[in-house]
């Protein structure tokens, strides 16, 4: 057999088929589950809409509202409803309730039930916004999947066209009927492999598609790809039709339920002699924006046209998933069948020790550094906020909008009545502050550090060790503590720095009220904690310079400046250049100092990019926008890094 069937192709096909059919079954299951869930939601919406119609009629008749509502709610309980609340917004009254634990009804909402009132306000605002704008932008019905497997539906009821309150239903969820997709998937995968083996053996016997000496065969690869795709296609077609049947059954169930709801609604209306509008079209089966879906006609019959529309959208999506699965499987097959997998395996085995040692760190980095990074990049193309974290990213996708909003807004200066003012929230202002912050800090760090290192390196200096230990201290102290200390020292009234100024006869300065003085506080703090690093690096570099070079230079008559310029500096370069690169990157992203000392005061004028990104993410909760902001920071740093490395290489080449 080995002679006729290419092993890499066979193994590749085995893996590809397993993967493809497993994923395919997964997608089908997921679609069936989504479908069942959406039907459950619509079941809830139908009830909520029907009930809200009843409530609004009872309210507009205005006789014995509370008593009648209690009766209606009780009667409604026949429809296997978990619990109902009717809440009127004016006066925050709980008019009727069949939820356990709600106590005596009617009553005012309690303090800890404020969320119920807020929910009602949201629904009212949503209704008014949509009506005013004439489009469906905000959800007029709120759905929430409760942890105890119940669905909570809240729909507003309107009196005279205005939202007066809302009804809330807690429906127990049916366990969705499973769609049998595992069996067909396993069968399909087995068939694909079987057919391939039979064909490969049969053809091989006649000398067609025989594998070469290394066991590779292009013909068999093509054959396997064909069989695989055909098998997958048949699976997809049959499963989609199974899905269609599934939906049909679910819709019929919903239509039946609809009739029950209609009956209940009619009974209540008749017993209170309410005016009812005849059901000509189905106005209860709506989406969350209260737009009719036109799937069933309100008399227990399904409408093919409406159903087809929903079906087509689902099928389009499913087809795209299956296309993806097919491509993935093909790639896997090709990977193995063309001998690449073999080569990869060979490499892995050859270097197994190296990979063994490096793998723990790499795996950790992949999961907790690189994956979050990529996820963040994806997030930057969405308008994810705290309010839509549950929604799939696909729905939030907005392309480059965030980047355009950040980069294309060049209105740094705005003209107002008082003249020109700076828009401190603008990206370019923050960028300017960040660059100034980095340049000033690194320059201070390098010059102070180098100066101290030169002094400490003086031959025969006593107490050198003592000085060095004391001067390293600022580096040893955690920088968030340093930041908080300096914030205290810069306090306007009690801070020690203003005491010094007053001692010298000056007026106390409100450090965090001015753009420049606030900048100074950050520089002072960061300068204090960053010079020891440079000092230590320079000391290390200085100690490695041999004294003979200086002696030779002195013999040649070189002065101190010349010695410094032509011996010390070039010898320090291998230490200084990496140290500067590191400290530029550190300072550029020095979150703690800005965040804790000035907090970007006044009015966000002293934010650097990284603190601004944090505030967008965790004070405004605009995750997508903050991710785009952060990505730009990364690109800037990356560009700097590449530029710096190129520069270093270029200068090295010149010497």
């Amino acid at each position, binding site marked *: 057999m080995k002679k006729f069937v290419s092993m890499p192709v066979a193994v590749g096909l085995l893996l590809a088929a397993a993967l493809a059919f497993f994923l395919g079954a997964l997608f089908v299951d997921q679609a069936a589950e989504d479908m069942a869930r959406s039907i459950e939601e619509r079941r809830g919406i139908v009830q909520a809409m029907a009930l809200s119609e009843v409530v609004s009629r009872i309210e507009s008749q205005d006789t014995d509202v509370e008593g009648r509502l209690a009766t209606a709610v009780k009667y409604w309980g026949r429809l296997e409803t978990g619990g109902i609340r009717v809440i009127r917004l004016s006066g925050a009254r709980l008019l009727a309730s069949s939820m356990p634990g709600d106590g005596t009804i009617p009553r005012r909402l309690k303090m800890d039930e404020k969320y119920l009132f807020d929910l009602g306000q949201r629904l009212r605002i949503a209704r008014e916004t949509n009506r005013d704008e004439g489009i469906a932008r905000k959800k007029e019905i709120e759905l929430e999947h409760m942890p105890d497997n119940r669905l909570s539906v809240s729909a507003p009821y309107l009196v005279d066209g205005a939202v007066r309150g809302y009804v809330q239903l807690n429906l127990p969820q049916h366990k969705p009927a499973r769609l049998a997709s595992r069996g067909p998937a396993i069968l399909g995968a087995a068939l694909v492999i079987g057919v391939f083996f039979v064909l490969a053996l049969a053809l091989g016997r006649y000398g067609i598609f025989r594998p070469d000496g290394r066991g590779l065969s292009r013909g068999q690869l093509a054959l396997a790809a064909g069989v695989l795709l055909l098998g997958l296609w048949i699976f997809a077609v049959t499963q989609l039709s199974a899905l269609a049947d599934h939906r049909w059954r679910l819709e019929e169930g919903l239509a039946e339920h609809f009739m029950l709801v209609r009956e209940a609604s009619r009974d209540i209306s008749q017993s209170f002699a309410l005016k009812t509008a005849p059901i000509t079209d189905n106005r209860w089966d709506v989406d969350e924006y209260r737009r009719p879906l036109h799937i069933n006609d309100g008399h227990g019959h399904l409408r093919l046209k409406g159903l087809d529309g929903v079906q087509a959208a689902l099928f389009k999506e499913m087809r795209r998933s299956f296309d993806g699965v097919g491509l993935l499987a093909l790639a896997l097959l090709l990977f193995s069948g063309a001998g690449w997998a073999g080569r990869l395996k060979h490499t892995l085995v050859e270097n197994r020790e190296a990979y063994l040692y*490096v793998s723990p760190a790499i795996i950790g980095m992949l999961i907790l550094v690189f994956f979050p990074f990529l996820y963040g990049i994806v997030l930057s193309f969405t308008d994810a906020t705290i309010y839509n974290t549950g929604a799939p990213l696909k729905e939030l996708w907005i392309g480059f909008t965030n980047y355009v909003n950040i980069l294309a807004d060049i209105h740094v200066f705005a003209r107002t009545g008082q003249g020109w003012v700076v828009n401190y929230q603008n990206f370019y202002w923050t960028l300017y502050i960040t660059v100034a912050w980095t340049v000033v800090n690194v320059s201070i760090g390098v010059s102070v550090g180098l100066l101290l290192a030169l002094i400490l390196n003086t031959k025969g200096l006593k107490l050198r060790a003592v000085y060095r230990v004391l001067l390293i201290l600022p580096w040893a102290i955690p920088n968030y503590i340093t930041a908080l200390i300096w914030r205290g020292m810069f306090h306007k009234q009690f801070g020690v720095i203003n005491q010094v100024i007053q001692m010298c006869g000056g007026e106390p300065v409100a450090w965090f009220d001015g753009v420049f003085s606030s900048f100074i506080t950050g520089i002072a703090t960061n300068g204090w904690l960053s010079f020891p690093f440079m000092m230590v690096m320079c000391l290390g570099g200085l100690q490695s310079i041999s004294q003979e070079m200086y002696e030779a230079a002195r013999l040649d008559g070189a002065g101190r400046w010349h010695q410094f310029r032509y011996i010390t500096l070039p010898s320090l370069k291998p230490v200084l250049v990496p140290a500067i690169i590191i400290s530029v990157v550190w300072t550029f992203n020095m979150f703690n100092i800005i965040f804790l000392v000035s907090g970007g005061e006044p009015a966000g004028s002293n934010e650097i990019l*990284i603190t601004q990104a944090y505030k967008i993410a965790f004070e405004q909760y605009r995750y997508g926008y903050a991710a785009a902001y952060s990505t730009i920071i990364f690109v800037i740093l990356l560009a700097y890094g590449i530029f710096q490395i190129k520069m270093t290489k270029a200068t090295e080449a010149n010497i």
Partner: protein
Amino acid sequence: MKDTLTGEMNHIWLHLFLISFTLLAVYPILWVFAIAFSGNQSLMIADISANPTFFDHLRTILPWPQHISWQNFSDVMTEQPFARWMLNSVIVAALTTILGVFLACTAAYSFSRFKFPAQRAGLMSFLVSQMFPGTLMLVPLYIIIVKYLHLGNTYWGLIMVYSTTAIPFCVWMLKGYFDTISVEIEESAIMDGATRTMIFFRIILPLAQPAIAVTALFSFMTGWNEFIVASLFMEEEIRYTAPVGLRFFVGGFAQQWGYFAAGSIIVSLPVVILFMFTQKYLISGLTAGGVKG
């Protein structure tokens, strides 16, 4: 004798400069000590009269409290849950150090001693990852750790994040150091029949002690000093780490400067001591990594 004396005379200006600069550099630390031992929560070292004179101001500047008292230290450890926060920090930082050093040593050894495909790409990706802005990672990390792995409000969530963030720097530094250890020792060990594991544990690790000390210190500091991830992940006050707790004392509208100062000293002391012990390694480690990396 005379020669050294004139040498010292020449250095007097240097000493003057160094002394004044050192005083300036150490002042904030003295200030914290003065507040911590003052026994009250005020930002001022000394009370000040309505019409302060020059000497009144001078008194508020001198870092010496009016009354010396241990009150802040005992209060912060007993009345505030600070002891618990310290314990949390110790656990997190210690385990971060162990895990971080292990991950960094193995990876750096591999990068230093073997030639393998994707080696350069791996090293470069570590370097580039240093430029990833934390704000980009926070939301995804929260989703991974809290939503997927259900490690929110636990030590392990923090430990995993901290030890991986410390990896790239540690790997680069250790690799630089490993590169300076001559390969011949290993080759002769292999001739004597030693396995890779033996070489790694018996030869390389002992030889690289200075660099490993620096790596350990760096990992420890990462775990000990971080407060943003910790404040996001740890929901209960009892689970706070020390940095989150310290910020709690003086963040927002809280003004408990006495607790803050006492707590700061307690938190900084272990790091400063560790730092002073390892600083001679630190210099050789950093320069080795810097030059050869």
